[in-house]
């Protein structure tokens, strides 16, 4: 019986001119968004690969020079692009794509697409996820808003009930029809577009997880659409309620939440953070290049005392390298402290943002989509932390070599190409589902709860319909 009801709904829906035009528009927009994302990603990927290769090549092929001077030439580390970034570029355009590694400093990411990019990148936000998360619910509303109210308005509902059809079966059949349409739309488009643009690498567990999330999101809107259409007798009122919910969930709640979060937990300006770190280092760190600084003098004296010598020449190692590494170790603790505070602040912001998921499934799926696509804040932090770990190893490798070098204050020790190549390369892989599970368990639970609640609403609507006298 369910299939019978669903099949009739499908026949009707496929014959609506409005539906055909809407699907056509959606497909055109989807393919435009894919083309834009593809072009943008190609541009960014080429830039990334080229920049990373060139940066390492420059490092490896440096002329002979002092290790520490070489370190100051630095190296650029590029954030790899996930194959799913094509679908959802998340915060990538705002967070930056590369970090410059150098001694004494922990730099922030650079090459932020929103700051300096060609016009093409300005379109970067029009991604397939935008279509899936913003526009697909509109199509679902168009399909479901009058599914039941239309029966009541055109008078077929009494005839239906006279056939002995229970409300539950009727709603289940109609819901099934909406599901079939959405599955027929989403799955082929997702797979074909994904494979065409991302190759077979696109077919991985993450893309299927993303697909599942989009389907659940569509399901929430389907269930709410059928519920409202059942409880409201007039289709004109039903569509206003559903579009109102869509605007509230997809536009109003995210904007309000962002403002509230920024007011409760304001993010420090980048310049302010840098100033705080600089002041902390000035107060508590070691500044190798400022030999008259009180901490530098104190450290030098403590080393002399520890080794019971009266001159730096008499130390069993190169003091220049030793103090450089000591400055790194001390200052890294300061960097780590400030960045840990910053991440704690981000976490508070995100947790507060999660609360908005109680009234808006959009804010939940948006976070999950970015999480699976590795374009979220946590992936970005994972990358910046990995680069900082690498920075520590990179600098230590150079300083350790310097420590073993003869100590000649007026003569700098020189290294050649062979040494540069010995410095380990930066190896980084985007995090898997472990990070996703770690940060999104509450969001996942809330999301599943929304889905279950939407099913519950459907059951409630069927009971109301059953109990109503006609």
């Amino acid at each position, binding site marked *: *019986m369910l299939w*019978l*009801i669903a099949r*009739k709904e499908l*026949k*009707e829906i496929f*014959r*609506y001119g409005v539906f055909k035009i809407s699907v056509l528009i959606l497909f055109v927009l989807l393919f435009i968004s894919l083309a834009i994302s593809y072009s943008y990603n190609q541009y960014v990927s080429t830039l990334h690969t080229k920049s990373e290769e060139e940066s390492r090549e420059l490092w490896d092929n440096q002329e002979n020079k002092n290790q520490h001077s070489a370190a100051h030439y630095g190296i650029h580390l590029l954030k790899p692009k996930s194959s799913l970034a094509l679908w959802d570029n998340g915060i990538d355009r705002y967070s930056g794509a590369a970090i410059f590694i150098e001694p004494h400093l922990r730099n922030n990411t650079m090459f932020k697409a929103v700051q300096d990019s060609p016009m093409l990148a300005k379109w970067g936000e029009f991604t397939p996820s935008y279509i899936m998360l913003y526009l697909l619910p509109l199509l679902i509303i168009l399909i479901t808003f009058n599914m039941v109210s239309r029966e009541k308005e*055109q*008078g*077929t509902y*009494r*005839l*239906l*009930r*006279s*056939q*002995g*059809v*229970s409300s539950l079966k009727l709603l289940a059949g109609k819901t099934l029809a909406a599901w079939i349409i959405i599955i027929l739309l989403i799955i082929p488009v997702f797979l074909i577009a994904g494979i065409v643009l991302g190759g077979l690498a696109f077919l991985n567990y993450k893309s299927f997880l993303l697909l599942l999330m989009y389907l659940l999101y569509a399901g929430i809107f389907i269930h709410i659409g059928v519920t409202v259409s059942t409880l409201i007798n007039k289709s004109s009122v039903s569509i206003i309620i559903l579009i109102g919910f869509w605007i509230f969930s997809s536009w109003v709640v995210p904007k309000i939440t962002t403002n509230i979060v920024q007011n409760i937990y304001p993010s420090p300006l980048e310049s302010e953070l840098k100033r705080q770190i600089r002041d902390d280092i000035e107060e508590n760190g070691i500044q190798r290049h400022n030999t008259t600084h009180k901490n530098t003098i104190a450290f030098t004296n403590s080393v002399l005392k520890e080794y019971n010598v009266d001159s730096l020449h008499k130390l069993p190692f190169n003091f220049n390298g030793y103090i450089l590494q000591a400055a790194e170790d001390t200052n890294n603790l300061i960097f780590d402290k400030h960045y840990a505070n910053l991440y704690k602040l981000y976490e508070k912001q995100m947790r507060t943002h999660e609360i908005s998921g109680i009234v808006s499934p959009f804010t939940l799926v948006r976070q999950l989509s970015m999480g699976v696509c590795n374009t979220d804040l946590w992936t970005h932090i994972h990358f910046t932390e990995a680069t900082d770990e690498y920075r520590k190893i990179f600098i230590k490798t150079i300083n350790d070599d310097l420590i073993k070098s003869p100590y000649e204050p007026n003569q700098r020790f020189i290294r050649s190409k062979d040494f540069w190549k010995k410095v380990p390369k930066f190896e980084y892989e985007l995090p898997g589902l472990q990070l996703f599970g770690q940060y999104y368990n509450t969001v996942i639970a809330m999301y599943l709860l929304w889905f279950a609640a939407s099913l519950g609403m459907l059951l409630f609507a069927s009971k109301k319909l059953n109990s109503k*006298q*006609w």
Partner: protein
Amino acid sequence: MIEAIDLSKIFDGKTVLNNLNLKIEKGQIFCLLGANGAGKTTTINLFLGFIKADSGNAFINQLDVSKHPLETKKHLAYIPENLMLYPYLTGLENLEYFTGLARKKYSQNELHEFLLESGLQESYINKRISTYSKGMRQKVGIAVALAKDAKVLLLDEPTSGLDPKSGNEFAELLIKLSHQGIAVLMATHDLFRAKETGTHIGIMKEGYLVDTFPSENINHSELESLYINHIK
């Protein structure tokens, strides 16, 4: 086949149906006459289970409607005053859908035959309902009753608004169905059609069934006088 025992319904404190007792056997066509608000549609709705009785019982094929709401519907077909079908589907598709809901399976040819039997022109069978007249939609309703193999037919002013030719065709169909053993309860304002079609006539006034008699015992003018006297 159709039976009401002390059936009553109250809406907002007003008794709209008062202790209705009625029995319609196989092959009978019972026409309920009465002014607007007399309780005709309420009676039909109670047999359909669309509303719940405040007291008494309604039976379809010996089954209590309130206790077996889904089971009783398997045995009945219903045609309202203005039968609305799905405008984007053809007559055949509408028939296929409603018979399917009644758990009856037929081939396309069999469904085609039901529509022809109900008097629908062949050229309209595969056209969308949006192109149908009211009379044509009523014929699809009859085809549903035929295909469903209904034992009971409940009609709520089915000939209202039909042109004389369509009204006659509809009446002939009803007589044909009654000859097949279907019990028919028809609420109507049409005295002429009630006399011509019905085997029995009942007159309702303010929720009471005030009179019942076999239609063969009365001619058209007597029926008209009786009706006017009752509803004064």
